[in-house]
C-alpha cells in the first residue's frame, strides 16, 4: 500500500480536481439551526453584517419592536419586519474506510477499492470547497474551508491502511447537524457500522453511505478447491467447490445491501453501491445530488 499511496498522493489531487471541474458548484442547503449556522463567505462580500435582504412581512405578535423596519413602515399604515436571508456554510465530514479490506482488487488492471474511495472523497471535497463549504475528514482533519484545506485533506488521505481487517465508521470530529459521507465496502461486522451510524445520527448529522465494491465481489468468479482469506489473513474459509458457493454468497451480499439501505433510511441517510469497475462520475453525481437534496 505504501508505494501505491505515495504515488497516489501526487496524482490523486489532480485527478480529483479534474473530476470536480466537470460539475457546477455544490451548495449544501443549510439546515436551519442557529447553533451551527455560521456566516458563509458569500455574506462577507457585502458591507455590514453580512445579511442580505430577503423580504418584508407584516409584523405579528411576538415580534419585538426592535425588529420593525421603521423606514418601510412609515410609508404605510402597517408595521413591517425586514427579514434577511441567512447564508450558512455547511460542515461536511468524510470518512474513508482505511481498513485492509479496502486494498482488495479482483484484477491487476483495476485499482483497489481504497483508491476509488479516496478519489471520490477528494472530488467531493473539491466541489464542496469550491462552493464555500467546510470539509473535513472524520478523525483526521477538522472541517475547514479554503483551498488550503484541500491540500491538507489530500495528505491525510494518503496515509497508510490500518491494521484492522474491516473498518467501522469514525465519527470523531463530526460537527453536529453537519453532513457526513461514509465511503467503505461495509463488509465488516454490521454492529460496528450500525453503531457508527447511530452516533452520527445522534449528533443530527445527515449524509450518504457509499458502498464501494470490486466487481469480483459482486460476481464471485471463483471455482474449484479454494481457501478464501481476508486481506489480513485473520478470517479464512475453505471450500472444495467455490463455484457452488456463488449463489449463496450473492444472496448474502444482497441481504447485506438491504440491511445497509434499511439502516440508512432509518436515520435519514442515503445509500448507494458503487463498483470500481464503473466510472467514478456516476457516484460523484449521485453523492452531489444526495448532499444537495438532503432529504
Amino acid at each position, binding site marked *: 500500500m505504501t508505494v501505491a499511496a505515495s504515488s497516489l498522493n501526487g496524482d490523486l489531487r489532480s485527478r480529483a480536481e479534474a473530476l470536480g471541474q466537470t460539475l457546477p458548484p455544490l451548495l449544501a442547503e443549510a439546515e436551519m439551526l442557529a447553533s451551527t449556522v455560521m456566516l458563509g463567505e458569500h455574506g462577507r462580500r457585502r458591507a455590514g453584517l453580512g445579511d442580505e435582504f430577503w423580504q418584508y412581512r407584516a409584523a405579528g405578535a411576538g415580534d419585538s419592536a426592535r425588529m420593525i423596519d421603521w423606514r418601510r413602515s412609515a410609508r404605510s399604515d402597517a408595521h413591517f419586519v425586514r427579514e434577511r436571508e441567512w447564508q450558512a456554510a455547511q460542515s461536511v465530514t468524510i470518512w474513508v474506510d482505511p481498513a485492509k*479490506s479496502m486494498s482488495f482488487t479482483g484484477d491487476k488492471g483495476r485499482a483497489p477499492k481504497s483508491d476509488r474511495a479516496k478519489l471520490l472523497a477528494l472530488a467531493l471535497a473539491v466541489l464542496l470547497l469550491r462552493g464555500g463549504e467546510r470539509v473535513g475528514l472524520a478523525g483526521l482533519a477538522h472541517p475547514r474551508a479554503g483551498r488550503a484545506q484541500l491540500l491538507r485533506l489530500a495528505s491525510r488521505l494518503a496515509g497508510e491502511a490500518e491494521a484492522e481487517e474491516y473498518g467501522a465508521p469514525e465519527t470523531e470530529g463530526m460537527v453536529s447537524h453537519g453532513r457526513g459521507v461514509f465511503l467503505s465496502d461495509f463488509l465488516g461486522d454490521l454492529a460496528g457500522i450500525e453503531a457508527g451510524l447511530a452516533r452520527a445520527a445522534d449528533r443530527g448529522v445527515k449524509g450518504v453511505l457509499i458502498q464501494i465494491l470490486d466487481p469480483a465481489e459482486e460476481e464471485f468468479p471463483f471455482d474449484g*478447491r479454494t481457501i478464501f482469506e*481476508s*486481506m489480513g489473513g485473520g478470517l479464512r474459509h475453505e*471450500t472444495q467447490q467455490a463455484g457452488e458457493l456463488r449463489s449463496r454468497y450473492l444472496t448474502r451480499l444482497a441481504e447485506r445491501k438491504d440491511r445497509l439501505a434499511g439502516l440508512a433510511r432509518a436515520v435519514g441517510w442515503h445509500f448507494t453501491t458503487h463498483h470500481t469497475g464503473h466510472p467514478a462520475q456516476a457516484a460523484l453525481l449521485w453523492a452531489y445530488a444526495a448532499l444537495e437534496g438532503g432529504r
Partner: protein
Amino acid sequence: MFMIGPIGFAVPWLLTALIALPVLWFLLRAVPPAPIRRRFPGVALLLGLKDEDAETDKTPWWLLLLRMLAVAAAIIGFAGPILNPDVRVAGTGPLLVVVDGSWADARDWPRRVEKIEALIEEAGAEGRPVALVRLTDVPDAVEFQTAEAWAGRAAGLQPQAWAPVLDDWAEALPEGQFETVWLSDGLDHPGRAALLEALQARGGVRVIESQRVVLGLHPAVFEDGRIVIAAQRMPVADAVSVEVIARGPDPAGIERELARVSLTFPSGVARGEAELDLPPELRNRITRFELEAARTAGAVSLTDDSLKRRKVALIAAGPDQEGLQLLSPLHYLRQALEPVAEIVEGSLTEVLLANPDVVVLADVARLTQAETDAALEWLEKGGLLLRFAGPRLAGSDVSRIEEDPLMPVRLREGGRTVGGAMSWGEPKALAPFAEGSPFFGLVAPSDVVVRAQVLAQPDPELTDRTIAALDDGTPLVTRKAVGEGQVVLVHVTANAEWSSLPLSGLFVQMLERLAVSTRAARPEAGDLAGLTWVPEMVLDAFGQASDAGELAGVAGEELAKAMTGGPSPALPPGLYAGADRRVALNVLGPETELLAADWPQSVSVEGLEGREAQALKGQFLTAALAFLLADVLAALWVAGRLTGLRRGMVVVLLGLMPMGEARAQETALPDDVRALEATTAVVLAYVLTGDPRVDELSHAGLLGLSDKLWQRTSIEPMMPIGVDIETDELAFFPFLYWPVTAGAEQPSPEAYARLNQYLRTGGMILFDTRDADVAGFGGGTPEGQALQLIASGLDIPPLEPMPSDHVLTRTFYLLQEFPGRHPRGAIWVEAAPLAEEEAAEGMPFRNLNDGVTPVVIGGNDWAAAWAVDGSGVPLLPVGRGFAGEQQREIAYRFGVNLIMHVLTGNYKSDQVHVPALLERLGQ
C-alpha cells in the same frame, strides 16, 4: 530377449514396476488436488457456508487414469521396448555378402546399401571376416577381409545397367565354410540355381529380396503408323497403369517431355501395351521413352533410327510418259520406299524447302545454278543426294571435264552397253561387296545383271569412292562426301531399262544400307554383322544417359547377340553408331520376360523392409510426457486455476497462428507488390542466373551504380531487383544486366518470346560475359559459348564494335573506354545504318540519331567494378592502387552513360543540331 508380440524389451525387469500401478491408484485417489489461496474481503460473507458435495475432494477417475497412463508409459519406455528386435543368433565364421547389383536393384539401391552396411557392421561387431561381391562384375577371386576394410566401400557401390552373369562365379568362390547373405534383385538370372547350390555347399544362405515391383520397358516399335510401347512387370498383380513419357529435344535443342501416354497392365498379366500416335516431326525427335514411376535402366527404352520415317524426295527429269508406268524412272523407287518412308515430289527447289532426308534424282542431268546452290547448302547440313544414271545423264556433258559438285565422279562420254545385239560380251554381274563398303555383307543374287551403265573417269579418288562394282571392276555405285552429307551415284537407271537390279531384293537392301529407307522393324543380326559399332551414349543403372566417352567400338555380331540376350559389361545399354545409322541397345529386348527368382525351401527369404529393429523408447517417453502435460492442464482445470491461464493460452495460440498466415502471404504476395516496387521509381534489374555468388554480385553492382546515379544525376533509382526471365514480367524495367555464366541454360521459348518483345519495345540488355581478362569477345570461353547459345534465340540486330563516335561515349560523361573490372574488353553495340557512314564536314560525329541499341555486349565484368556493400564501400578490388580507383571511376561513368542512354535515348546525338537551331532563332 523378453518379447511381447513383435515388441521386445531391453530391460524387461523394469516392467515389474507396473505392479505398483494399482497401489498408485489408491494413493493418488486419496490425495485431493491442492487448494488455491485467495485473498478475498467477501470471505466475511462466506463464513459458515458448508460445501454441498463432499465427493469432490477425491481426484476424478479420469484424471487418475491419465496419471496412471503417464506412469505406465514411462515405465514401459524405460524398459527399452524395441519393435522387431533383431533376435537372430549371431553367426560364426566368415560372411559373404552377395549383391546382384543389376539395373533392377536401382529401384531401391540406397536401402540395399544401408542393408549391406548394416550387415558389414554387424559382422564387424562379431569379429567375422567379410567379403562383398557384386555379381554384375566380371568374376574375380573373393577375399575375406575385416569389416573395417569394407565399411567405406559399401557406400560407394553402384548398381550396373545390365543383368548379372552368374555362370563363372561358382569357380571364383573361396574355399572353406562361410555364411552367405544374398541381396537378390528378385529376378531370375541364368545360372542362379547353380550358384546357389555352390553357395549352399559352403554354408548357410540367407536371401534378402525387395517386395517392390520391377518394371521394364521394351523397345518401342512402329506399327501401322503408330508407336507401340510395351512394358513388363515382375510380380503380376492387379490392373495398374503407369505413365510413359517420351523425351527428346525441342526445336531449340533443349531436352523436353514431348509426349506422355498412360500404359495399363491388365489384371493378372505381366505385359502391358500402349499406343502413341504422333506427327512425324515430333516422332522423329523422340530419343527415349521412360516409365515415370521407375528410375531404372530397365524402365528406359532408347529409340534409334528405327522409329524415324525418313522424308524422301523423288525427282525425275521431265513429265512421265503416260501409259508407261513400268518404264517410269521412279516406279521401282516408289514401290520400294512407299511402305517405309514419306515421299515428297515436286521440283528440286520446292522439295528442298521441306528439308527432306534424301533427294533422289533419277536421270536428271542439268540443274540450274540456284538449284545447285540450294542443293549444296542442303547437302552441307547432312542431306543425302542419290542420283541414278540414265540416257539423259549419259548424253549430257555434266561432270565431263570437271567434276560436278553434285556428282561423285567424272563421267566418260556416252557410257557403255554390254551384252546387247551390237556388242560383244555377256551382261555383267555384280562383284561381291568389298569390306568397308556400306553394302558389305549383302549377297548379290547371280541373276542381277547390268546391260548398260555410265562409266566413271579413272581418277585418283575413284577407288575410294567406289562402294559397289561389277565383276569386271567397273564402278556401279560411287559416293562422295559433301560437308556432312553425301552424294551417291548409281551408274544404272532406277528402272529395269539398263539392269535387273531394281527388280531384285538387293535393290531394297541397298537402299536400306544407304539409309534411304527406314527399317520398319528392328535391325536383324545380318544388318549389324560385319560393321563396327561405336557407343555414343550409355545408360547407367538408374537410367541416366551419359556420354560414352572413349569406350571402344564393338563388333556387329556381338551387338546382335546383345540385342536379344541383353546388355553385358562389355556392351552397356546405350546408343551405338555404325557407319550411317544408329542402333539402340536397351536393357530389355522385345521378347525379354521378367521372371521372378524362385528360391528353394531350404533358403530363408527376408524382405528388405519391415524387419528393421526400431527402438520405441523415445515414443513411449514422449507419450508419458504428453500425458503429464495433459495432467497439468487437467489438474489446473479441476482446481479452478485454468481461468488465469486462458488468456495466456490465447496469447500462445495467437503467437502460433501468424506463422501459418505469414507463410501463406509470402506465397500469395508476389506480383502486385513486385510491380509496385518496380514502377514507383526507376529500378535497375539484373537477370538471376541461379549462381548465388553471381546474383549477389549483380545486386551489389547495380546498387553501387544506383548510388552513383543518385549522387550525380537526376536519375534516382530504387533498390535493384533480380529478375527471373522465365516467370517475371520484364516490361517494368528499362534496363537489364545479364551476367552470362558458363553453362547457362537456354531460356524456354516463352521466355524468348518475352525477351524479344522486351527488346522490340525499347528495353536494353547489357550482356556481360565477365571474361575479358582471358578472352577476346566471342572467343571459345565457356561464357562466350553460353552467350552464343542464349543469343541464338534473341532478336538481335547486326552488331559492330562500339565506334568511337557512338552516343554512349557522350551521354553524360565524355568517355573513350569502358572498363569494368577488366580494363579493355571489346564492346559490341547495334551497327549503325550504312547510309550514315560518313561524318559531315567539320563535324566530330556522324549524324546518327535514331534508335537506342537494344543490346550492349561485352566481357568487362562491370558489376564487379560497381559492386558496393551495404555501407557503400567497394566490394572488390579493381586494378592496382590509384590507377585501379581511376578505373573504377571510369567504370561508374560508363554505367552512368549507359543508363542515361537507356533513359534519354539519342538526345545527345540530336544536339548536333543545336548550332542550326540557334542560328534560326536569330541569336
